[in-house]
Every structure is written in structure tokens, then in C-alpha cells.
């Protein structure tokens, strides 16, 4: 019984310690984002996080829009309400699926790479070397990535939204035979500026989650190549979990206010 209690207690302490270090890292990265003297890496990270993720976002968004229209039109047709399928795509993409999809793409494509890169730097003493050269690794490695993520993810989300609508329109107008005027009227009828703001806020939060989690995993890496692999995997898994959790909390928050 005592052993079990000890195990549970230790697990709880580990979680508290993990989220404590994650919070501290995020706070320090935010602080250094505005105080670091030279941020020459930002464009490189913007390119890596934003532009290089674009092809994947384009394909996934168009296909998602197409699939959503097909699925919703199939059901709504029974009630003669297939003209509303565009509305369902727009509402779900702008508030839920858009930010979550883009964040998951970012976690898989960029988060794992960040954890692996920083983890490798950690085990090959490059992080120590940086500290000895009186350069703060958080300011040098993480703040520019955080800044780039906060710019890139909402931008990708907006691109993703409009591409999903394009994909939905292609299927809705050409295959389901919804008149184009009606399709676009219904698509934008139920969404407003508030929905865009909610989508952008969610994207910013998810960007912070993905970059902070992957950087934290990288900095905690130990144990050689196996440790680097573990850090990359853990960063993706924890990011996915936190994206879904944060989405739930934010959706609840915006629903009730």
C-alpha cells in the first residue's frame, strides 16, 4: 500500500515538475522574445515553420473541405437541406478543425524536428558551449522559434480555412449541384469576425504549446541517440494531447462568454 502511494505521489510530483518547467520555459521564452539584442534567426524559422509547412496544409485543407461537403451533403440531402453543407464546413473549419489540423501538422512536422535538434545539441554539449559563451539558449534557440510559430500558425490557419472552403465549393457546386451563389451565401452566412478571432486565438495558443513542448523535450534530453528519439516522440505525443485539451478548454471558454 505504501509502495503504491509512493508511486502515485512520485508520478504527481513528476507531472507538477514537468508542467512547472514547461511554464517557466514558456515565460522565459516570451520575456526574451522582446529583450534579445539580435534575432537574426527569425526569418529562417518563419521559413521552416511557415512556408515549408504550406504544401502539407494546402493538400490537407482542400481534401478536408471536399470530404466534409460529401459527408454532410449525403446526410442533409435526405432532408432537402444540402445547401447548408457549406455552412457546416465553414463553421467547423473556422472554429475547430482549422486551428486543430494546422496545429497537429505543425506538431508532427516541426515539433519533432525541434525536439530532435535541440536534444542533439544538448547531448553533444552544444547547449553547454552556448552557456559558456554567455548566450542564453532559451533566448537564442527558443524565443525566435516561438515568435515565428506565433506568426506562422495563425497565417497557416487562415490559408487552411480559405482552401477548405475552396475544396468544399468544388465538390458542392460541381458534384452536389448546389448553385454557386447559394453555396457561398450559406457558407459565410453563419460565421462572422468573432469566429475568425476565436480561430486566430486558438492558433496562437496551439503554436505556443507546440514550440514550448518540443523545446522543453529537447532541453530535457539525455542518454544519447535513444534519448533524442524519445524526445522527438514525446514532444509529438504531448503536443497532440495538449492541443486537444487546450481546444476543449478554449471552446468551453468562448462558448460561455
Amino acid at each position, binding site marked *: 500500500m505504501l509502495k503504491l502511494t509512493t508511486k502515485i505521489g512520485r508520478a504527481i510530483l513528476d507531472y507538477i515538475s514537468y508542467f512547472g518547467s514547461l511554464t517557466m520555459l514558456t515565460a522565459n521564452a516570451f520575456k526574451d522574445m522582446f529583450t534579445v539584442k539580435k534575432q537574426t534567426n527569425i526569418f529562417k524559422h518563419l521559413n521552416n515553420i511557415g512556408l515549408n509547412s504550406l504544401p502539407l496544409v494546402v493538400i490537407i485543407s482542400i481534401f478536408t473541405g471536399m470530404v466534409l461537403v460529401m459527408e454532410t451533403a449525403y446526410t442533409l440531402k435526405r432532408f432537402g437541406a444540402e445547401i447548408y453543407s457549406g455552412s457546416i464546413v465553414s463553421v467547423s473549419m473556422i472554429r475547430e478543425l482549422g486551428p486543430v489540423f494546422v496545429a497537429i501538422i505543425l506538431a508532427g512536422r516541426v515539433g519533432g524536428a525541434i525536439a530532435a535538434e535541440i536534444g542533439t*545539441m544538448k547531448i553533444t*554539449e552544444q547547449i553547454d558551449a552556448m*552557456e*559558456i*559563451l*554567455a*548566450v542564453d539558449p532559451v533566448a537564442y534557440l527558443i524565443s525566435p522559434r516561438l515568435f515565428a510559430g506565433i506568426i506562422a500558425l495563425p497565417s497557416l490557419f487562415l490559408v487552411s480555412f480559405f482552401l477548405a472552403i475552396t475544396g468544399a465549393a468544388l465538390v458542392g457546386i460541381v458534384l452536389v449541384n448546389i448553385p454557386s451563389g447559394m453555396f457561398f451565401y450559406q457558407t459565410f452566412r453563419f460565421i462572422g469576425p468573432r469566429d475568425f478571432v476565436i480561430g486566430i486565438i486558438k492558433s496562437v495558443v496551439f503554436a505556443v504549446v507546440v514550440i514550448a513542448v518540443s523545446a522543453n523535450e529537447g532541453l530535457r534530453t539525455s542518454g544519447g541517440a535513444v534519448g533524442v528519439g524519445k524526445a522527438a516522440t514525446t514532444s509529438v505525443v504531448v503536443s497532440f494531447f495538449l492541443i486537444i485539451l487546450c481546444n476543449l478548454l478554449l471552446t468551453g471558454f468562448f462558448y460561455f462568454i
Partner: protein
Amino acid sequence: MEKIISLTDIWIQFSDTPILQGLNLDVIKGESLVIVGSSGCGKTVLLKTILGLIPITKGHISLFGEQVNGTSKNKIMELRSRVGMVFQSSALFDSLTVWENVGFYYLNHTDMTEQQIRSAVREILAEMGMENFENLLPEQLSGGMKKRISIARALISKPEIIFYDEPTTGLDPIMADSITKLIIDMRKKYKTTSITVTHDIKLASRISDRIALIDNGTITEIGTFEELRQNSKNQLIKSFLIAEEAK
């Protein structure tokens, strides 16, 4: 004689394993101290501890007369800007070219132009015998070259103390000899205090003013090479010397 580093009753423990157990050590300004000891005895840990990279369990560390343990991040950064370190793995930044690695300190701490930094880098690379390598990436260099670049990076800011962690480990005898000569030349030129951790007793005999032996988490012997050679009864020191004589 001015103490530039002072360690008092240093204890370090990883999980349940004690690494350093009540270690005391003073380093005098201008001297070259070599630390020897068997693998895993805590030599590298000691270097990193002095620079505040590894927290201590108990004790007091003073660097340039300032306390290291328990001090603020900014203060530690300020103290670190006065030292240089050559890592066992060289620890060059993979994504940066040779000139960016060597000029890293200047790039991040000064308002020097790229032209000025490149010029300073070229000058120190020439001293290292590494001209015309400035635009290569670390992956394009051999182990010995990386070590030279690492020494250049540590020396470019003209530090008051330089730490060498196993500078000749993993190098062939010719390259090891060349690095040893480089360390001696640089010491003559810059007159920097140096602390070197090594297994290489030949290197220790050539560069040291004093040699300290770490055993069981503490300094068990300290003195000049000759003093240890003549007076030491320590089995570990004897085995080091026998290994050297066998060479």
C-alpha cells in the same frame, strides 16, 4: 598569490550516486592546473560545476572572487563571459560555419560589424593553422580540426581562464602532439590561467604547473609533476606514471 578559483567542501550527487565528496581546490591566477583521475571520477563534472552548469549539493564556489552557486543568471553569464572552454566533443554548433562558430561570442555580445568579426576570426584561425576553413561547416572537418576550431572559439574573446576538457582524447598521436603544442603556444602568447582535465599524462607533464588527482570524489594528491613523480605513494598516480614511462 591571487586565487582566481576557490572551491570549498564541494558535494555533488546524481540520484543516489555521490560524485564529488567534500572537494577543496584553489587555483592561482596565471597557473596551469591539470586534473587527472580515472574515468567517471568526476573531472568533467568538476569543470562544469565551476562554471555553474551543474548545481552543487553543498559547498561554496568562488570564481574571480564572486560566488557562483546560488547567484543570479545574469551574474553567472557575466562571469562566464570572462572564461573559455574547450569541450571533449569540441561542441561546435552544427548549423553554423567555422567563422560563425569562432565569432559566436562577438556576434552575440558586441556591435562589431561582420567584416570586423571575420577579420578577428581570420587572425585567430591563422594562429591555429586553419586559414581558408572559415566557410566550412563542422561536419566537413576532422576531429583534430574541430578541436583547433574549438580552441579558437574559446580564445577569441581573450578569456582570463580557459578550461580544457580532454583536449587530446580521440586524436591520433601526431594530432594529439600538435594540439599539445598549440595549447603551450597559446598559453605563452595569452598568459591565460588554464585548467585541463585529461587522461593523457604526457600532455599533463608538458603543460602543467601543478597536477591534481581526483579519487573518491575528492582531491587526494596535488603538486608539480616532479613532486608527484618522486613523492607520491598513490597507486593511481603511479599507474599513470608507469603508463607514461611505458610509452
